[in-house]
């Protein structure tokens, strides 16, 4: 499947781009992160500590082991600091 993958804040800065299309068979965000981490050092740096990150699937916060089946948009970002 092809996913639209978005990065925000320092995840975006470390990877060096705000979004990209990713072709993957990953079943969960956790598996997707494993694949991305293996790509290049900048991805490994961005995803060094997933405990410091959050993931959204189709614009809803989700768990790291949520299913990616049917999902079109995945976003990775640090905890929000709105308000």
């Amino acid at each position: 499947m092809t996913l639209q993958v978005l990065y925000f804040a320092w995840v975006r800065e470390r990877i060096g781009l705000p979004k990209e299309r990713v072709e993957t068979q990953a079943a969960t965000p956790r598996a997707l992160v494993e694949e991305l981490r293996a790509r290049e050092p900048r991805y490994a740096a961005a995803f060094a500590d997933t405990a410091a990150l959050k993931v959204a699937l189709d614009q809803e916060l989700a768990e790291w082991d949520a299913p990616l089946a049917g999902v079109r948009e995945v976003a990775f970002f640090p905890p929000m600091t709105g308000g």
Partner: protein
Amino acid sequence: MTVRVQQEAFAAGAELDAFTARATGAGAIVSFTGVVRDVAGGLIAMEIEQYPGMTERAIAEIVDAARSRWDLAEVLVIHRHGPLAPGAPIMMVATASAHRAAAFEAADYLMDYLKSRAPFWKKEITQRGEHWVEATTQDEDALSRW
């Protein structure tokens, strides 16, 4: 209910008056305005990044949750993004209810959730360099109050 996510500045006073005019029948109006504070090191700008699309969706969910919990005549949320100068307004929340406790609690609730569940990220650009503002465990713990 009015939700606005925008780069432009807003005038809190004019927003409060317009909100109060819309909130017919309410006896209690609470507003919160967040302003960019200067920081040690000299703040040049506060840069606010957002996730367009998810931002509006997340705020609407937060407002809906507040409305199902308290009897609110009207709710306002304005949140800016982009680079903001020290002293500039960042965001505003207003709540209107028949009674004071509901208006206060709902405004406090909205702020807690906007802080930790709306997809905004703040970066401080100072004379000494720039860094992302980190979420605190208190921010997250605040949600367990509700």
